[in-house]
């Protein structure tokens, strides 16, 4: 592609992962590339080091596959079939491929039987973010004073809440809170949930594993992001620290993305009109 990188200087991203205070291993894996507008987080599961392998495969395979695909077709380009940005379809296809790779690796090696991973991936393009997730790793958004989870957990617990069987408050103390209903690599099929959201300058996005939100109240997470808004390194450090100060029961990973300015596709209005006419 001849066009200059629209994302240059638009995003600031900090990644951090920590084993926590209880687990001997870190089965989380993170990836981010601000110049390609990519942020990925995976929380692996399985015996031996299978969890590490699954989450590592998910982040490395997905990131390289997405970057290769976007080199040919821009992430923001409107897909003829769906009317959605190409990134939506691309995420679905590539997560499918990553799922197959992990699933087959587990079949081939007895050590890796049953391994799998959660996944949350964000692709930033043309003032939008395309979000895919599988399992209970989350994407939060801080916009002004509003802080909310954009993803909806694929977990046993969330299903109970959705069905009105359990309140969110009761869920905090549930013993089943780590059971996910969807994961990458555990079956020959995977069902990622994918949505597109508009992005504004000043937004802060947080990808995180359950090691963060199980230990730290959302109000405290929000406060950390607001307080350290000018210094993402410190906000990431603070988030990990808070989870550890509350016990650090699980691996803790965060990817903090700050939108420094808008990143519309070249020509602004004209190209939007063009894509609308098409």
């Amino acid at each position, binding site marked *: 592609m001849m066009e200059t990188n629209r994302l240059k200087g638009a995003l600031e991203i900090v990644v951090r992962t920590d084993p926590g205070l209880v687990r001997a291993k870190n089965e989380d894996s993170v990836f981010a590339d601000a110049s390609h507008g990519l942020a990925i987080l995976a929380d692996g599961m399985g015996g031996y080091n299978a969890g590490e392998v699954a989450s590592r495969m998910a982040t490395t395979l997905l990131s390289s596959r997405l970057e290769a695909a976007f080199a040919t077709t821009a992430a923001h380009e409107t897909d003829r079939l769906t009317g959605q940005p190409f990134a939506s379809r691309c995420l679905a296809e590539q997560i499918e491929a990553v799922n197959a790779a992990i699933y087959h690796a587990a079949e081939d090696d007895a050590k890796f039987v049953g391994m799998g991973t959660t996944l949350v991936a964000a692709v930033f393009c043309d003032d939008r973010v395309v979000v895919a997730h599988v399992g209970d790793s989350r994407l939060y958004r801080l916009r002004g004073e509003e802080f909310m989870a954009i993803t909806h957990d694929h977990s046993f617990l969330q299903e109970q809440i959705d069905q009105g069987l359990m309140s969110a408050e009761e869920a905090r103390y549930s013993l089943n809170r780590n059971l996910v209903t969807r994961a990458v690599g555990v079956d020959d099929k995977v069902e990622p949930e994918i949505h597109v959201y508009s992005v504004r300058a000043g937004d802060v996005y947080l990808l995180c594993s359950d090691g963060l939100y199980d230990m730290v109240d959302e109000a405290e997470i929000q*406060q950390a992001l607001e307080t*350290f808004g*000018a*210094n993402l390194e*410190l906000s990431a450090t603070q988030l990990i*620290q808070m989870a550890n100060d509350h016990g650090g029961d699980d691996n803790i990973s965060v990817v903090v993305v700050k939108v420094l300015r808008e990143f519309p596709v070249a020509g602004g209005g004209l190209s939007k009109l063009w894509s609308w006419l098409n």
Partner: protein
Amino acid sequence: MAKLILSMDGLVLKEIPLRKEHMSIGRKAHNDIQIDNMAISGEHAAVVTILNDSFLEDLNSTNGTLVNGQPIKKHFLKDGDVIEFGKYKMKYLVEAVASGETSEYDKSTQFRSEPLQVVYGDRDAMTASAPQGSATAPTLPGAAIQLLSGSNAGHQLQLTKTLTTLGRRGQVAVIARRPQGYFLTHVEGSDFPLLNGQVVDAQARRLENHDVIEIAGVKMEFFLKR
């Protein structure tokens, strides 16, 4: 924990927590609280603390001891009592420092250059009799910031939240409340905050009782409430 606030002419000189069961006050160096002034007897008085109760006893000093203006021999201390030895005053406080008590801190720094010596006695003995620190203290003591300069001098800011922002827009530092204590970190701005005159960067620094923080020209004192 109760404490004594030593002052002279309205200027706060020292805050002395009553950590030991027996604390002696006098001019000589062996005292737990030494006040190096000729009007003070070598062994002037003593404060005995049993659980939450403190008693003050004058040890037949030459110039006597007053509490709330009255000479005493033995006195059961109550919150807010003012003890006087010559020109020196000591306020007995059960809880936190009252607002305004240390608001004239700035002037007291000038005062400190005079040959006045206020020292603790045997620090090791004090800590041994009253173990402190994160290993033995299950809960973090409360803490606050008191502004020492600027238009809001004397105001207190309670550090009850996990994170408390100090400074103004473009010039910000944060105090994080953690189980291990309170930590100061520089967040943004080209001027870095000073902690007891030393520059603090993004590396978090643990705050100790009575540390003086300066941000954007405003001085403030950190103190723990025991």
